[in-house]
């Protein structure tokens, strides 16, 4: 088969769409760096994805050709915003928006696993959301239960580990039981860790860490003088993963804020604000966010990394 070695650009159609979709004053207007990246093209191939041959222990990682494997983030966090507005725009009820949001999440979980992302943290329900109408909250929790039940097998088969963080004290007992089963049943899975934040807020996390430390001091495990940043970090709920600090935070629906999510952990996280509402985000939006992440100059304070 004839095989040509040619420099290939990233998808220009999407690149321009991305430029116009993202607000110019938004944190990340697009500024691509055009790099002549050679990709081997097979003339008869219709696939737009590059397949990397896995090592013995790795599973197959299939990356879109716009993305570079060595620059992929290890931990991606997402604020899934805009389900309600999406439903309103479509002339539907809020719960239809939440259903569509679950479908969008399934796709992103699948893509994250396939593209070699290690941890995906999603903000499903904030402590601030408790002020919503009771009927909507009840629907959200029943949807969460149904989704966990129906997807449990799928997650296990795809080697996805599920972890839930947040204040569980107000959650329905049936949901708590299901969460425990899900966490227990997937705890040895290695491909992707899906962390779902329910009843979570950044401030709650710091406060529960303080409570945890207080208990350890009380129990004589540690001394008051030993309390430092590291100890607080150990007690944060995101410590359930090997990579507690997100490399990339995506917020959909064009809002430019972090809304009390992972406050402590986001100090050096790259922020990407997408215009699309969460149910519309999908594969192309995810590629755009990851491309933007890869094209940015990554710096930690004064130290260039």
């Amino acid at each position, binding site marked *: 088969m*004839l095989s*040509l*070695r*040619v*420099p*290939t*650009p990233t998808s*220009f159609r999407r*690149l*321009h769409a991305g*430029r116009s979709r993202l607000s*110019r*004053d*938004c*944190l*990340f207007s697009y*500024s691509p760096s*055009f790099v*002549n990246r050679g990709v081997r093209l097979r003339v008869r191939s219709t696939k737009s994805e590059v397949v990397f041959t896995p090592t013995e222990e790795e599973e197959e990682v299939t990356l879109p050709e716009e993305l570079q494997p060595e620059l992929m983030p290890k931990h991606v966090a997402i604020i899934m915003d805009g389900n309600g507005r999406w439903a309103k725009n479509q002339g539907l009820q809020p719960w239809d928006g939440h259903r569509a949001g679950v479908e969008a999440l399934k796709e992103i979980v699948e893509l994250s696993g396939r593209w070699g992302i290690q941890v995906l943290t999603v903000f499903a329900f*904030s402590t*601030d959301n*408790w*002020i*919503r109408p009771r009927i909507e909250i009840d629907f959200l929790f029943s949807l969460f239960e149904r989704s966990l039940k129906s997807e449990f097998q799928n997650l296990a088969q795809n080697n996805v580990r599920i972890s839930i963080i947040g204040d569980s004290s107000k959650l329905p007992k049936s949901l708590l039981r299901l969460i425990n089963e899900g966490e227990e049943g997937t705890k040895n899975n290695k491909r992707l860790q899906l962390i779902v934040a329910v009843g979570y807020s*950044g*401030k709650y996390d*710091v*406060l*529960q*860490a*303080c*409570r945890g*430390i*207080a*208990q350890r*001091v*009380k129990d004589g495990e540690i001394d*008051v003088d030993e*309390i*430092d*940043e590291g100890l*607080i970090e150990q007690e944060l709920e995101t410590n359930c993963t090997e990579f507690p600090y997100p490399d990339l935070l995506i917020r959909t629906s064009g809002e*430019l*804020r*972090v*809304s009390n999510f992972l*406050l*402590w952990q*986001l*100090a*050096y*996280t*790259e*922020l*990407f604000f997408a215009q699309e509402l969460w149910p519309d985000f999908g594969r192309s939006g995810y590629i755009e966010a990851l491309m933007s992440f890869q094209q*940015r*100059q990554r*710096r930690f*304070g*004064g130290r260039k990394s």
Partner: protein
Amino acid sequence: MDLNQSMRLLSSWIAQIGGLGLDLLWRFIHLVVSLWYIVSGIIEAVESYAISLGLNKKYSSINIEKLRCLAVVVDIEEARDVSKVIELLQWLRTIGVKQVGLFDSQGLLKKSKDMILGTVPGSVLSEEIGEKNSSPDQNPLALEFISSSDNKEAVMKAANILLQDYLKSSRPENDKGENFFTETHLNEALRVVGENVHAPDLLLVYGPIRSHLGFPAWRLRYTEIVHMGSLNYMRYGSLLKAIHKFTGVHQNYGT
């Protein structure tokens, strides 16, 4: 020359011509896209100058009261040029901003605070704003200087204060401190350690960065975050546009 050899020669020519054609196409597309970025950059600059000169009436009236507190994050490389920061503060004062927090991770701006306060007319330290005759100016610009030590370090110190108080207080064995470690208590402890807890409504990020670079997380709950590009190329029009855009934002706080 046999048929096989001529076919091989022909296919290598086709491959070379194809490669050359693709290379030319790539260069042409590269040129078009580069021109697109140059043109869009020029349009943005022209728009910015039009706003600065007051030609764009849309930006002439800003509901500045909505912006109670503004924070500016400056990349460490750019924080060294204090003159640019001073110019930015003068613009903010012209616009009518009353409270500004200045942040860089290493506290370079904090070290230059005397120079900044001495150069920016009508500027005072925010902690002095309540004091009598702190500023002869009727509309002072209250400045707060923030660095990384006001972030996790401050939360850690505040947590320590809470822990000491919790351990000193006589509490039943089964008390896990739910009513003790609350947001209100932690805010109070942060005040004790000198962390003023002014939550900015708008955070402007200057420099080649795409994060808030360790700005105190505790304050960022509902802050709008806007990346402004390099401080060296800052424009009054862009600043006005960002603030105007913020004043039109509706926050629903989780509802």
